[in-house]
Each structure stands twice: as C-alpha cells, then as structure tokens.
C-alpha cells in the first residue's frame, strides 16, 4: 500500500481540522479501511486515529439512549441498557461479521463502512463508486448480492451493515460535528441513494465526523426481531435482512417499525408497511399481506431476482418472530 502518515488525535477539533484537508481519513477499528487500503481501493496520505477520544460511552440522556461513535460493536451488543431497551440493535450487531471483527469495529466505522460490491474492491474492474465515470461493473455482471430498491443507472450497490438496519428502524438520530459546529440528522437520512453520484455513500460533508447516535425511547423491546438470511450461518453479508419492531397491546398492533438490509444503497425503511399494520392483529395472514406492500417499486437484475421473493418472505418471517408467533 501507499506510504502514509499516521497521527493520533487528541481532540474532536483536531480531528475536524485534520480531515478538512484532502487525502486525510479517520481510522477507527480499521477493519474496513485497512482492507480497502491493501487492495488499493483507497489510498489516503494521512490517517487520523481517533480511538483515544472519549467517544465510547453508552448512557441514558434526556433524548434516549446515547451511544458514542467509538463504542465497539461487541460492547454495544452486550451492553445491559441496549439489551434491555433495544434488543433489536443487539440482535443486529450480533448478526454482523465475526466476534473478532466486532471486537475492533466501532459504531461510527460501521455506519461509514463501504459497500462489499466485488467490482468496487477490484481496481482492475469498472466501478463508478470507486472511480467515477468508469461504469458500473455490477450492472450486466454478477449482481446476486445487489440492490432491488432505489438503484440508479450508475450504481446498484447495497450498504452492507446490519447495525444500521436496526438503527434506521429504531428512529435513531446521528450527532455530527464539523467545521461549522454540531448538527443532527435522522438516521434514515444519513445514508443516501446512489443517483448520479454513487461515490457518495452518505450526507457527511468534508471535515465532518460522527460523534454518536441516539435512540429515542419506545415500546418495542418486547416484540422485536432481527432476521438475517445469508449463504452461511455466520460471517456472511445479508442476502436480505429485516429489522422488525412491534408495539402490541391487547392483541392489536399499535406501532410498527420495519427496515431491510441487503436491498438498497441505504438501510431501507418500510414506512408504508408499518402504517398498514397499525390496528391489525398480529397474524400470519396480516404479515404476509403487509410484506407484499413492501415490494412496490422493486426492480431486479440478472442474478438477484430471487430477492423479490425472498424479501417479502423474510419480512413476514421476521414479523412472526417479533410478535411471538414462532
């Protein structure tokens, strides 16, 4: 890999100044960035190690549960507050990667991880995300793992995270710091669709860093489930995953949150399906019906048409688990 400078940051302000310069990147757990550097997909001149900053805390604030950007994936998954209040997040985290990776991976790094599209990883292949204007290798190529929602003629990649699917479902917000101070974004607005600019994965601007995420209180702890369908039982990215959270009172659904992974360039929240479930009884038939709604606007490519069938099946199955039907 290209020789680079390495600096340890001692303050958020220091990080922001450093990453405002071109060619500089934050390194957290390094589980994604270092791989990309080894394969020549990215070649920063300078890395800013942020792992010594005090951004690891997990605690309750007036706005809900606060999780620092440097909290490790494994720590978040085991945290008592998380397990008690938002078991969906714990389940999603445990469905991701491997224990070794989760021990290194941070919340911020997980949000910022890049697509696993194999064309993106191979510098000998065309890819608009890695090298804008070279074309999309996956369109017309091997696209079994690719998106069925929100694609563009420039890119059909998916965001690979499991954690983010749960956070999107749980109405989380993202706290961001930058040269102009702090700002907050809805988690569902953090990642973007590829459109004309697949090189941009999200709405983080140059010089900005993630400080934390916050999850508002909810009534979903009892009835939530993360279901990840994959080619092997562990250490594989999702073919389709579903985060399902229900608020069931007296046998009737009062609130629902649903998001899918493995189907779009961002965690794919299913607002319409959620609405359709309100006031319904948690039955297999109702779930199957609702799941069909999710597929409006879906578009398959040569090798991923199975997702059109797998996605609704997984939604229905996840809802069954969440509601205790299985």
């Amino acid at each position, binding site marked *: 890999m290209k020789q680079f400078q390495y600096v340890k940051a001692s303050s958020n302000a220091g990080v922001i100044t450093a990453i405002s310069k071109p060619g500089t990147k934050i390194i957290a757990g390094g589980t994604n960035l270092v791989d990309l550097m080894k394969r020549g997909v990215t070649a920063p001149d300078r890395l800013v190690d942020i792992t010594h900053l005090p951004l690891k805390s997990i605690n309750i604030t007036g706005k809900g549960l606060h999780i620092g950007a440097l909290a490790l994936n494994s720590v978040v998954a085991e945290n008592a507050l998380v397990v008690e209040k938002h078991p969906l997040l714990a389940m999603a985290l445990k469905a991701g990667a491997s224990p070794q990776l989760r021990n290194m991976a941070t919340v911020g790094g997980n949000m910022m991880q890049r697509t696993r599209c194999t064309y993106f990883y191979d510098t000998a292949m065309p890819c608009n995300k890695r090298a804008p204007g070279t074309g999309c290798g996956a369109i017309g190529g*091997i696209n079994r793992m690719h998106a069925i929602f929100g694609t563009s003629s420039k890119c059909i990649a998916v965001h690979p995270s499991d954690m983010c699917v749960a956070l999107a479902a749980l109405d989380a917000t993202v706290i961001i710091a930058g040269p102009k101070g702090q700002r907050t974004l809805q988690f569902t607005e953090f990642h973007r669709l590829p459109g004309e600019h697949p090189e941009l994965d999200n709405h983080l601007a140059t010089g900005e860093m993630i400080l934390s995420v916050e999850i508002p209180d909810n009534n979903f702890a009892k009835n939530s489930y993360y279901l990840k369908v994959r080619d092997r039982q*562990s250490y594989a990215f999702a073919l389709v995953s579903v985060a399902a959270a229900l608020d069931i009172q007296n046998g009737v659904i009062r609130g629902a949150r649903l998001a899918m992974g493995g189907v779009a360039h961002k965690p794919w929240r299913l607002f319409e399906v959620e609405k359709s479930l309100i006031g319904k009884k948690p039955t297999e038939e109702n779930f199957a019906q609702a799941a069909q709604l999710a597929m409006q606007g879906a578009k398959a490519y040569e090798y991923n048409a199975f997702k059109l069938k797998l996605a609704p099946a*997984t939604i229905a*199955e996840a809802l069954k688990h969440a509601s205790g039907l*299985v």
Partner: protein
Amino acid sequence: MEEAIKTAIPSSADGMSRIDGRAKVTGKAKYAAEYRPDGLAYGVLAGSTIAKGTVTAIDIARAEKAPGVLAVVTHFNSPKVPGHQKPKKPTKKAGPILVFNDNVIHYNGQPIAMVIADTYERALYAASLVKATYNKQAHDTKPPSDISMGIAPWGKDSVRGEADAWKNAPFKLEQEYVIPTEVHNPMELHAIIAKWDGADKLTVWDKTQGTQATRDDIAKAFNIPAANVQVIAKFVGGAFGSALQVWPHEIAAILGAKLVRRPVKLVLHRQDMFTSVGHRPYTWQKVGIGATADGKLVGITHEAVGQTSTYEDFAEGPINVSKGLYACPNVTTRYKLLSLNIGTPTWMRGPGEATGAFALESALDELSYQVKIDPVQLRLINYAKVDPENGKPYSSKYLDEAYKMGADQIGWENRRQEAGAVKKDGWLVGYGMGGGMFGAYRDSATVKAVMRADGTLLLQTAVTDIGPGTGTAMVLIAADIMGLPADKIKFEMGDSSLPNAPMQGGSATTATVGGAVYDACTELKQKFQKLIGNGGTDNPDYAKILSDKNLAGLDVTTQSSLGADAQNKYSMQAWSVHFTRVLVHPATGVVKIDKVVSVADSGKVISQKTARSQLIGGAIGGIGMALMEDAIIDHRYGRYVNNNFADYHVPVNADIPQMEALFVNKPDSHINAMGAKGMAEISLIGMAAAVANAVFNATGKRVRDLPITPDKLI
C-alpha cells in the same frame, strides 16, 4: 501376517493427541513464510488484467523509482531460466506457464511482473504502479454445458456390457449435474522463501506436498544438481492438492533471489489462490440410469465435461465412480475437456471422484424415489462383491457394514420415503446419504530408523504433513513395533535431504510411509535381537544393549513398497458413506445441517484422533461443496469476482453441527502389515450428494447445480 496386524495396532494408540498439536496452536510451528534469513527481501506479483492476448509494453518506471524497490522483473528483462525452453516437438498446447518467459496471456491474473523491495508493503505499493499495455483478444471462460463441447482426452467412450443400456430399463431417469469451480483455499497462503547459497546451490522454504518432487523440478528448471537444492517444508497449513506441483510464483521467487542477490520471500495473495495454484474444475455431467422394478441396476451412462486451461490439459476421473461403485452390468462413460482462458485446474481432495459421486449418488437417490426403494437398500441390492471393471476380488471391503453403522447412528428409521413429510419447529426435516470410493494406493518410501544411546528412536523421511497428522500416525506405528512409549520417538520429516518419500497425495501416505516405518522398525529391532543373541527378547532394552556393546547407536535405512503380486491379484479401494439430517426453512430457503454421520471403510485405523479429524474435515469440505463453494467468473472480463474469503464461502463453525466419525476398522491384510488404507479423499467423496439428497427429502426440491444456496430453494 495376521500376527503382525494384531501387534501393529497399539491399544495405546487410541486417543493419542497430535505430536505437533501444541506447536501448532501455540504458534511455535514454523511455516514456509515464517523463516527469517538475513537480508530477506519481499516479492509481490502483478497479474494480467485481461484473459487472453499479448503484453505489448509494461511501464515499470514508476515502480522502479518507488521507495525500497530492488528490482522489477518482467518478461522484457527477466534473467532466463535455463530449464524454461519451449518443447522441441510442437504440441497442441503451449505447456505450463513459464513465468516471465514470453508475452502471451492465457488467463486473467497471470503473473506479468514481480516487484522486489526491502519491505512487503513497499513491494505491494510498487506493484500497483506497474502498468501493462495489451493486445487484447476475445477470451472464452464460459464453462461446459453439453457433451458436444471439448475433446476427449482418452479417445473413445468406455463401454462395459451394452452401450447406453439404461434406456431400455423399466425405471429410468436422465439428469444433468453441475459442480462449479472450487478453490482449495487452504488457510495458509502459498508461500516460498528462496535463498541462493552459491552460484548453483539453493535453499528453499516452501509450501509443498512433496519436498523431493519440488527439489527435482527446481533443479531441472535452474539446471543445477538436485543434490544442491534443499527444500524445507516442516509444517504445511493445508493444501488439499494445490501444493502437488511447482507453480510459477515459486520459480519467480527463485529467479528474483538470484537477481537481487538476497533471499526473497513471496507469499501469494488470496486473489492469486483462485487463479495461479489450480482449482477443482467446473464440471458438467449427465447421468442416465435405469433399473428393474426390484431395484437391480440395468445400466448407467455417465458423461462429464470438465474445464481445463488453453495451455495444459488436466484430466481426472469423475466417471470412475460409475464404473466401480456398483455391480451394474452395463456402464458407458464419456469424458471430455473444454479448454478455457483460466489457470490449469489440479487435483483437489477427492479429485474427480468427488465430482462424479455428486452426480451418481444424486441420480441413485432420484432413482430410489422412482422404484420406491429405500436408498440404502437400493445400494445393497447393487452391492459389488468383486471389482465390476476387472472381476478382481477386493483386498478388503466392508462397505455394507459401513452402511449399517451409519444408518443406525443417524436414526435412518426416522426418514420417510416421501419428500417434504417431516416438520419440526417450522423447519422441514430431511435425511440423505451418499457414498464414494477411491483407490487405495501404496507407493515406495525409504525410512531411516536410528536408535540413539539414550534409548530414543529417531525416524527420518522426506515426507510432508499437510495436516492429517502423519507424524502422529508414524510414531504410533513405531511405538508399537519397538515397544517404546511415543514420547521416546521423534519423527523428522519435511526436508528433501532426508530419505526418499513420495508427495503427500492420493491418500497414500499412511499406507506408503507407514509401511516403510513398519519395515524399518522391524528390521532395527531384529538387529538388536541379533546383537543379544539367543533369539533375543520381545522387549529389548535398547539403551542398555547399546551401552553393553559400547555402541553410540544403531540404525537401518529401509525401502519398502507394495509387492507387484498383491497389486495384480486384488482391487484395492477405500470406501465411505455419509449420512446427513438437514433442516430447511420453507420461507427463506436456509439450509442447516443438523447431524452428520460419516463412516469410513479404510482398513485398520492407526491413529484414532487424527483419523477422526481427517474424516470430519473431509465431510466439512463436502458441506462446503454442497452449500457454499463457487468461484465465480464475470465472463465479460474473464475474471474472478468473489476471490476473497468474505465472498467465497467455506463453512464456519456455526454451519457445523455435531459430526460423528465412525470406522469399520477392519484390516486390509494385503496392502501393508498394519492393514491400513488412506482415507483423505473418501472423507469428502459422496458428502455433497448426502446433503443434496437430504435437502430433496426435506423439500421435494432437487438441486442439481451446486451450491445449494437459499435462492435455489424458495
């Protein structure tokens, strides 16, 4: 002979742990890439980005100027490898890749340049700066899909009895089966350190399955005496066949070391493991099979087309199982090779037979539903008591017992013959079985056995251990004959300068080297018994005898092989059968293996623990074959797209249930004194069908193109 067998299997053998287990798990075991000769430099290869054509220019200027770079080698500037000469007689194919020898590109990823630098990272970076210009030609990487494709390496069809007789049977079927390209992908990457000790003297630490074969090939390539080349492979982190030959990267490192006058280390990247060190070839197969109403096979026709490269033919035996596994009067086989712009395939665990067994054992399962006969029963009805190809008796065969052991252990009686009939907690439950065979080989090997003054025994031979636990088995054999505790015996191997031994391959090591250890130890013991005279004793006190006779030590060097007589008289085979219980989720198509029982009929078991590991490991390889492994090429570019461990899946712990490994454990009294046959290949052969058949039993869906991923079941 009987007597020898009894004593040769020590009861203390049961449960002895690997002699090198501790070294392996504590990191003390040194693998090829872990040696640190003074002045070590690092080589990194750059590969072609086209699949066919010629290299017209390579810009190395930026790479040469990059920090730490010692040399950039391409075919334009490479020192000549003296043994790299074009064959004098023109042949149809170009022959093996002669690295940096010419400008012709045969496959995507073929090495076109090597950067040598003072650190690995610097070499890696400089390699990314090498830019080639090509004259690109239309490539072909599309795998076979019909018997009309390719050429027959062995000429005509093989016909036993009547050709294509299955067509006349009352019950019959004809189906196509596909095994995609699989990559050996041992955990340890292929690696070499080459160090010249003089103009014609070389030391090489290498990942290889055969130190002496590698030594000879290198000596030939560089035109130096074989005695001047020392190849060391003390530990090998898996290979599965991929290290049975010398590949271009090994030659590259050696020529690089000569050029920069420093030892050079070259470790392949995971991507290169897909292109440059062989693979199990994508194979299309068609099986026609017919039987009478009572399940007697009338005929089998087995066709197969495997892929090979455009520059070499690699042929294996996928159709062998159809010739040998069952007593079927009429068997027709056709085998062809299709030349593509890919690296040449090579032997991969259970080569050919594993591919063929998937097709045959699936077809037999399909037939069992037609004739409505239990699959185990169907196999017993067609049980071969003599080799159906040549009528020879088997040196030993207890496969019927293996069937029974496996069926009992898995709970086969709970299987229902109709598919999709059993459900448990929302999952479909299915049972399946499949088996296989592989020739039981024994080669020639030489072992030196040295009894030292302190009463410890040293055994030496050049063989390697790529993982099965060879050293452990050898120590157990020696312990029994010599009457010594295992910790008084040292087995030294993995060095070409030791006495001759063949490559570790073809499941032949235990039979071959074990046979030689047996003979050497027997001879050495007799030498001691002669020394003390009087017919000796059964348990000589070696240290005392040496001291009494004022000797520093006593040794013998013994060569041993299988007599031609036994080989001519008997058909020597090893058998396996695998039983699986699987769960399939009806909505998501997820397959979970719930239980596996694998049974081997491979003669007497020498080392319980390592044999068990071997059988389990092979069966897990079969699960990978059934459910996951698939090296995918984007044919527009002729380039692999899932060439890493995140995308090319092999089973992880979560995929593996309780695995039961059972052994018939009855000696083959003809192959060697211990009665032991190899079991590396049979551990895998038949497993993929056992899984696919169970999936069918669970779901009623027959998947004939592996791997069985969830999308194929919804």
